């Protein structure tokens, strides 16, 4: 009940701040980029608030619970992406004075086709990234009040759409800044209480040779049909359908494979080893705590998987359109750099904590390894560990944080999607923006209904891979290389972006050939990013005629400090 109050409070505050912002937002320019009057500290809070999504708040802990230390590459990559953004993109892009990546593409290359393709990828990445947020909404609401998955998707999708359509970005900037602080409090405070409790519990060994066991007698409820493996025979209390037969009362689970139907409840006795889902590598043992542990059983080429993930996250951040648009709310290039470093510090402060939940989840919520609902570990753990009102309060806090996480990221993404739709497809004014927001929100919610089976971070990692394979080469070469031609940029965007998307799409639809081909398709960044760079460079060399005539002038604008007064005025 407390959790519901907390969630309603966060949602209410979000809407209130958004509405307050509307009164300040008057012109179209205000509406899109908050009139560029946001100081670095606020702006950094807003960027961090927007960036820390369901993937960071819920997903990282869930993956650590399942696969161990290798999954920490996700948060490290999510943060490191900002260092690369700082090194190659932040200040020059701000000086260029365009609002969005399509604006940059058109202004730099003087080509409408490049703008068109850039817009298409903004929409693709934006919608793709919205899916895991929708999943976060669906599972959070179902943990809190037991609604079916789709209810959370529809309700949260609706609230976000209304808020974006009515508030524009001015409102969003303050909302996002506020939500960073909500999230960092909601992840750190309960984590400290959990650690304290673990200490009072005489610090049970997390990484032990034995598989995880149920600490107390536990009723495990299955949301979907689940196949699992039992290592040690155990007598459970069944309500529902076990191994194809409906059953009530005690039954023995023999060693080997079993299957339960959706909505079945199995009551395990205290001390029983936790069975694990069939598609999960064996959950137990010291193996889990070491690099290339469970991941090595899961992936055929774990080293390739890790490096491909590193490439996608390190290079994908700069290609995330909803993040770049925030850099225009810095007054100048210098402020853009300062903002980025503050963001790095803020993300670091946050990312220390999710792993705590994943690790303690091994001890206190091993049943999630059986039901497969590992993405909910952050939500479930506090009430499981801390008894009574304290646990309930902490549970309310993490629920509020989770809501802040997917609300803020989804809002930022929707602003970007709506902005691109309004600018290039509908009509570039406030009315067009509002219709675009409604259209974009509906599409996201509809697609969000279909992604329940995927790990949140898997989806986010894929969105990063597409961004890294399309916008990263466009920005890096566009900013640092005069020789980039319009045809070259177009070819690189299309080849890199579409091959990465196709590989991911095939994997999502269940096309999983074994061996190298499967690994290459499932985690494409390691080949699709170099491919995109290569195509852009080679084609540009062959088509010097389509290098824009004013590239010299553009370079002056991108790279000279503002105090010289050579930076071109903003292009509306």
């Amino acid at each position, binding site marked *: 009940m407390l959790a519901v109050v907390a969630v309603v409070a966060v949602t209410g505050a979000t809407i209130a701040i958004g509405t307050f912002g509307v009164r300040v937002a008057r012109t179209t320019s205000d509406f899109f980029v908050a009139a560029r009057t946001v100081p670095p500290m606020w702006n950094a809070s807003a960027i961090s608030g927007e960036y820390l999504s369901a993937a960071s708040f819920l997903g990282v802990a869930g993956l650590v619970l399942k696969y161990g*230390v290798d999954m*920490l*590459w996700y*948060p*490290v990559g999510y*943060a*490191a992406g*900002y*260092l*690369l953004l*700082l*090194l*190659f993109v932040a*200040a020059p892009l701000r000086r260029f004075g365009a609002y969005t990546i399509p604006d940059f593409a058109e202004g730099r290359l003087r080509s409408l086709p490049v703008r068109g393709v850039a817009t298409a990828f903004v929409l693709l990445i934006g919608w793709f990234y919205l899916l895991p947020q929708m999943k976060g909404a669906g599972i959070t609401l179902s943990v809190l009040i037991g609604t079916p998955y789709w209810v959370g998707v529809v309700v949260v999708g609706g609230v976000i759409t209304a808020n974006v359509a009515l508030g524009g970005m001015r409102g969003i900037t303050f909302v996002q800044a506020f939500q960073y602080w909500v999230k960092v409090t909601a992840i750190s405070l309960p984590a400290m209480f959990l650690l304290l409790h673990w200490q009072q519990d005489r610090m049970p060994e997390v*990484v032990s040779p034995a598989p995880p066991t149920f600490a107390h007698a536990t009723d495990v409820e299955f949301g979907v049909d689940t196949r699992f493996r039992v290592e040690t025979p155990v007598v459970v209390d069944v309500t529902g359908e076990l191994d194809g037969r409906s059953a009530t009362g005690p039954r023995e689970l023999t060693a080997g494979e079993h299957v339960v139907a959706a909505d079945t409840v199995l009551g395990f006795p205290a001390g029983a080893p936790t069975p694990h889902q069939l598609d999960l590598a064996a959950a137990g043992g010291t193996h889990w*705590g*070491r*690099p*290339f542990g469970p991941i090595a059983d899961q992936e055929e080429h774990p*080293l390739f998987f*890790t*490096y491909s993930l*590193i490439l996608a996250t390190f290079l994908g951040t700069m290609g995330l359109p909803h993040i770049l648009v925030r850099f225009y709310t810095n007054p100048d290039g*210098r402020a853009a*750099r*300062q903002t*980025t*470093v503050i963001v*790095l*510090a803020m*993300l*670091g*402060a946050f*990312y*220390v904590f999710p*792993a705590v939940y994943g690790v303690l989840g091994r001890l206190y919520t091993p049943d999630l390894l059986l039901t497969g609902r590992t993405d909910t570990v952050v939500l479930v753990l506090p009430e499981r560990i801390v008894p009574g009102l304290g646990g309930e309060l902490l549970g309310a806090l993490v629920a509020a944080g989770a809501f802040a996480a997917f609300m803020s990221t989804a809002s930022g993404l929707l602003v970007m999607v709506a902005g691109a739709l309004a600018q290039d497809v509908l009509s570039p004014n406030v009315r067009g923006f509002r219709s675009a927001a409604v259209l974009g929100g509906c599409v996201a919610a509809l697609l969000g209904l279909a992604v329940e089976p995927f790990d949140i971070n898997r989806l986010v990692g894929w969105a990063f891979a597409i961004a890294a394979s399309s916008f990263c080469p466009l920005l890096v070469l566009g900013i*640092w290389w005069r020789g980039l031609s319009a045809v070259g940029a177009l070819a690189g965007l299309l080849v890199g972006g579409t091959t990465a998307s196709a590989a991911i799409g095939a994997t999502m639809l269940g096309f999983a050939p074994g061996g190298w081909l499967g690994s290459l398709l499932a985690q494409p960044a390691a080949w699709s990013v170099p491919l995109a760079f290569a195509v852009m460079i080679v084609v540009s060399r062959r088509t010097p005629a389509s290098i824009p005539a004013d590239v*010299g*002038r553009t*370079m*002056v604008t991108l*790279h*000279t*400090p503002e*105090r*010289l007064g*050579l930076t071109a005025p903003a292009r509306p």
Partner: protein
Amino acid sequence: MPGTDAPRRVAVTSPRTEAAERARPARRRLDDLADQTEVGDVLLRALIRAQLVLAVQVLAVLVVLLGGLPLLFVLVPEVGRLEIGGIGVPWLLLGMASFPLLVLLGVVYIRQAERNEREFAELVER
């Protein structure tokens, strides 16, 4: 800080140099940049090169320190088994140490990038 009672520094130049400085049209290099003359182009290329070299250097540090870890864990599996205070070293490296490293690299980069820009501005405004 030197003592406040120290004599003020003054630039000692020949009257002829000063006359020459005054005679030269002001802000000429700035115009070179704005008008894309050959001189302006050389100046700009030097700035871009300096900034790019700096960025690549910082990136190289990141690639070695962080990017080398997976390879290290594979080649020297013993590192993955080390513990400090009961916590595995890989957990400490990835979960804790990597974040301050990123901030540190960012701060170092900004200082040097702004120095490059300041030197460039002084050069063209002289």
